[in-house]
């Protein structure tokens, strides 16, 4: 088992993709930025100077402290300043990025699950199943995805009891973003499945009576995952932005557990009164996260496209 693992690692290091990666400074830089942001977000509880979710540790007197300046009342100083409630902006960014990433990753996984499932079935069965699934996808694609997310969010708010809204908000967000993004995966997987299912290796499996579920998951799925991973990477950046947009619009995660989008929404209220740091630093964090993931996705798409080599 270990031999196989190290064998695959050597193989991966010497692969075209790894070579292409080492030769692309943009990709290496984007990967470094994305990786450090992800690590910072994951280990936020260890890295952050304070816990912004803990009301007991907050002092309202600390509010609106500019970056690296002593507070006039308490004498405390913060690297990136504090927001209106006296929360350390650096800590809220770390915790906020953690939340944004979690929502983004879960939404992408949910969209992938839906899209790959629908695409495999539509491509394999063809006929009316294919027609129905793809018409649903067409209709969905004619709505802006943020509208769909808003719609789902509104419906979910009506269904969930008021005292549970804040705890369920994240999951509603994930499902909203996921439901508005599955179409891309479905389309790509469907067309790839239609190509693969006629190949002779699939016929060979059908001849010996391998069940369609097994053929789809063990034979066809591994062969259609390449383009799916590209979309997923770019989709992750889009999902993070969608989460920020929804939170900015006030339908996302509650202000007590802010994501990057919520922080930007809080910050923009104070921009014109001179407290610029509350908006600027979360915005830079969001930009860096989305941009680096997006650049990685772009690089991956080009690297996997044989015509662009």
């Amino acid at each position, binding site marked *: 088992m270990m031999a196989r693992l190290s064998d695959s690692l050597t193989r991966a290091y010497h692969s075209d993709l790894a070579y292409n990666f080492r030769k692309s400074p943009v990709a290496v830089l984007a990967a470094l930025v994305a990786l450090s942001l992800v690590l910072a977000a994951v280990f936020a509880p260890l890295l952050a100077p304070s816990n912004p979710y803990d009301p007991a540790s907050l002092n309202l007197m600390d509010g609106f402290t500019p970056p690296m300046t002593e507070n006039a009342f308490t004498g405390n100083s913060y690297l990136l300043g504090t927001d209106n409630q006296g929360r350390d902006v650096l800590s809220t960014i770390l915790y906020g990025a953690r939340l944004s990433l979690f929502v983004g990753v879960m939404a992408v996984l949910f969209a992938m699950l839906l899209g790959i499932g629908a695409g495999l079935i539509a491509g394999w069965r063809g006929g009316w199943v294919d027609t129905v699934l793809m018409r649903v996808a067409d209709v969905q694609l004619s709505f802006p995805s943020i509208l769909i997310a808003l719609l789902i969010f509104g419906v979910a708010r009506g269904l969930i009891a008021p005292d549970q809204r804040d705890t369920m908000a994240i999951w509603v967000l994930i499902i909203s973003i996921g439901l508005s993004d599955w179409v891309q995966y479905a389309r790509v997987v469907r067309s790839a499945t239609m190509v693969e299912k006629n190949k*002779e290796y699939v*016929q060979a499996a059908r*001849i*010996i*009576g391998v069940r369609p579920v097994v053929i789809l998951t063990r034979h066809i799925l*591994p062969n259609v995952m390449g383009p799916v991973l590209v979309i997923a990477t770019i989709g992750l950046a889009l999902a993070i932005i969608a989460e920020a947009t929804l939170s900015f619009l006030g339908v996302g995660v509650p202000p007590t557990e802010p994501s990057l989008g919520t922080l930007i929404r809080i910050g923009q209220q104070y921009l014109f009164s001179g407290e610029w740091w509350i908006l600027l630093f979360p915005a830079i964090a969001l930009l860096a996260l989305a941009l680096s993931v997006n650049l990685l996705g772009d690089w991956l798409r080009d690297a996997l496209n044989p015509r662009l080599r």
Partner: protein
Amino acid sequence: MADEMILSLDRVTRRFDISKPLLNRMIEGVGKQYLTATADVSLSIARGETFALVGESGSGKSTIAKMIMGLMPPSVGEIRFDGDLIDPRHGIARATRRRFQMIFQDPFASLNPRWRVGDIIAEPIRTFALMPKTEVAGEVARLLEVVGLAPRDAEKYPHEFSGGQRQRIAIARALSSKPEFIVCDEPTSALDVSVQAQILNLMRDLQDAYGLTYLLISHDLSVVRHMADRIGVLYLGRLVEVAPSADLFAAPQHPYTRMLLDAVPDLTRVGARARAVVGEIPNPISPPSGCAFHPRCPLAQDICKTTAPEARSLGDRGRSVACHMVDGAA
């Protein structure tokens, strides 16, 4: 023929619905359209022999292979493998499925590029649960050696092999379920000429070693001559002549068979121009009336345009020809 028949096709016809969608048909006022890929094909293959199906592209060879493998049902007629009906609409017993296998034309498409060679060869063994899991790796190694590859090749991926080596892997996979009958769909047409003979000789050796029955599908008459015991000639989905290999090459009866054989370059007639096959295979959506071959046939008479000829026996060596112009005395 007194030999035991392992496979029999009884008046097998396969039509494909190639109509436009319902809405288009209603708007344009056109009816349903069908393409007849094989029409009324009857043949039997004896245990242990190599039966070859030859014909131009579009003559229905691959459709017959797919129906025999249970990948699609015949529209009319029935296919029996050792007495068991082969029809995917009724389901095919696992015990029956194990006994037939297929070798494909394109060794670059017939092996899953994401699977290790060992897993590819083991798939039939695992699917039919032929042996305990602990013995599978040993069996794969043995099969690799049987087809002339090294046991350590099981760890590699298909892209690390050449076309000929891949075809050996495909043969090992076909052998792994210990089948009695193998359909070989143009097994060498994607390979270099230098490799073709190796693969054909391997197939012959395996036939002797395991008592296999082959249905060889090919358009390459030299391959067929090298391999086949009996030959069936397909034209536009119709079986026009069936004859033992030696008889067919020595004295082709059906005018289409003669045309095919005349087109093969021949060393005994150096300097003479090979006669090219005249005309093209007609459109199978609207086949000619009567005998499907009559528009290209040098012997065609009025009866050929109106009446489709039935297959008639010739001589006592299991030969049959479907042609009005060939008399039984030949």
